[in-house]
């Protein structure tokens, strides 16, 4: 079980995440009060914007994925954002802002559907990221003339061990 080495680490990350979590919540009450969403997502100390998975586990709702990631094959090679935000810098922040906004929004409203499932747009972002790291490995599988392969049909668990 690849995650075993790090449970302590997991705990730290959570507790560190804790305070930031409040920041997010605080920010969101603001949103509810009607202030522009983006400013707030940027506003909460930017913890949502750097690549530390702790930023994601600010929300206990992300815990299952975090735990899965700890046990997964990519723990030591890719962070959440490596797979969930596009590479080009601008696009990366747009996506983060968008997800950050919506996740925060839904999180406070609690009106999201469960089990949480990756949205098609974000699934596409993720698959593009697979390729940015594994482009060479899969080059042969995806000749120009052929439709792209759905990596997740077979590799759905690489990011998060079941």
């Amino acid at each position, binding site marked *: 079980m690849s995650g075993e080495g790090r449970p302590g680490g997991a705990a730290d990350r959570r507790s560190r995440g804790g305070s930031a979590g409040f920041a997010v919540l605080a920010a969101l009450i603001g949103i509810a009060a009607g202030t522009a969403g983006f400013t707030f997502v940027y506003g909460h100390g930017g913890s949502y914007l750097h690549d530390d998975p702790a930023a994601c586990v600010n929300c206990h709702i992300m815990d299952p994925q975090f735990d899965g990631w700890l046990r997964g094959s990519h723990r030591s090679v890719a962070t959440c954002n490596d797979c969930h935000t*596009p*590479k*080009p810098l601008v*696009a990366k922040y*747009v*996506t983060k802002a968008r997800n950050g906004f919506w996740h925060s929004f839904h999180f406070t409203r609690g009106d999201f559907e469960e089990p949480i499932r990756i949205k098609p747009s974000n699934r*596409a*972002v993720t*698959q*593009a990221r697979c*390729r*940015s790291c594994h482009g*060479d*490995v*899969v*080059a*042969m*599988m*995806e*000749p*120009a*003339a*052929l*439709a*792209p*392969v*759905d990596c997740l*049909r*077979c*590799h759905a*668990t690489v990011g998060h*061990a*079941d």
Partner: protein
Amino acid sequence: LNIFERKQEARTPFFQVAEVTDTTEDPAVWGQNFPKQYERYLRTADQVRTRFGGSEAVPRTPTEADPRSVVAQSKIEEDTRLKTMWAGYAFARDFREERGHAYMLEDQTFTERQAVGQPGTCLNCHASLAVVYRQVGDGDMTLGFERLNAMPYEEARRHADRAIACVDCHEPVTMRLRVTRPAFLEGIRAWKAAVEGIEDYDPNRDATRQEMRSFVCGQCHVEYYFRGEGKRLTYPWTNGMRADDIYEYYQEIGFKDWTHAITGAPVLKAQHPEFEMWNQGVHARGGVACADCHMPYLRSGAQKISDHHVRSPLLSIDNACRTCHPVESEELKQRAERIQVNTARLRDQALDALVDLIEDIGAERENGRSDAGFEAAVEMQRRAQFYIDFVEAENSMGFHAPQEAARVLGEAINYARQGQVALHAPDFSPRIVPRPSEDRYSVAAAGD
């Protein structure tokens, strides 16, 4: 925003060493461009046995008539009940476990089943024909198909040089998959129209890449019959693809493969309905293609390739199953074998029931019986036999659709034993169940 699409444009076309066109039949030439696929493709000559599949290399002394020095084990010797089921038909003479693609042409050429004189139609699934069709048809593929079907086997055989090759599954250069068998083009079009109400379906135009990963196999791994004078290769799918639907189809056109030697029943032979059975399983529902399991991706050097050593996935479980099922290989093997053993157990009971029925009818026939009870028994044999063969001939021993295989065998047992009852009980008339798409449950479903 669509980073995804942008990625696609970035993808490079294949670098060609040797020029390959629509008329390049020799896989060695294609192999210069794709040495890894070619190398694996050649490996289909390997013979390894699994519990219910693979194949065993059985040495034999070559003869004038049959120069093969190695064949696969004989299924009719391993289970002689099959000889009773096929009494009077060529299969009772010679029927072996199938082996790798490398052998398809020679195994067909030299099987003793040729003794009865076969049509050119046989060739459709046993040779590289993508180029041949056009040659024989003066550029017209369908015409070539019709001409080959109409020839005696020996004559058609002269047009074929080798087993299936790259050109039969791929477009040159792009390497896009393609269906090259007219029989499948016609069969799937008829099925889409009759069952799904989709007119003028053309897989080469309308199928997704993922669908093609099964369609290329469905060209040959299917149930078939020879239609009419021209011996046109035909796939009997217009009622659907389940055993019951196909039996119904044969009833409607009043078809029989041969007259049973012991009972005189007009009987049918089912053959390798892998595509049809797979369609009934949860893997197909989950979008899992033949190639996903039988040609799994394989890391070769810096890249992943589709393993062109087409074979039993149980010989490569790590690649064939484990990316989707993160479970130990040994456990996956046991799950598969457990399904197969359950199927084999039921298959045994079904075959015993059928043999009992055949012997009973045979005895009564000696006594010159021909009343209603006798006729009913004969009809039950025809039905039971087809159902059993549908699972027996399907080569995964139930794996492709575990519950469906068990259901079909269960119904076969019901028909075989009812045949015996009809023979011995004065006025018993067997209960025949409507096919699934028309039974009380589907009707209810429609009503839902």
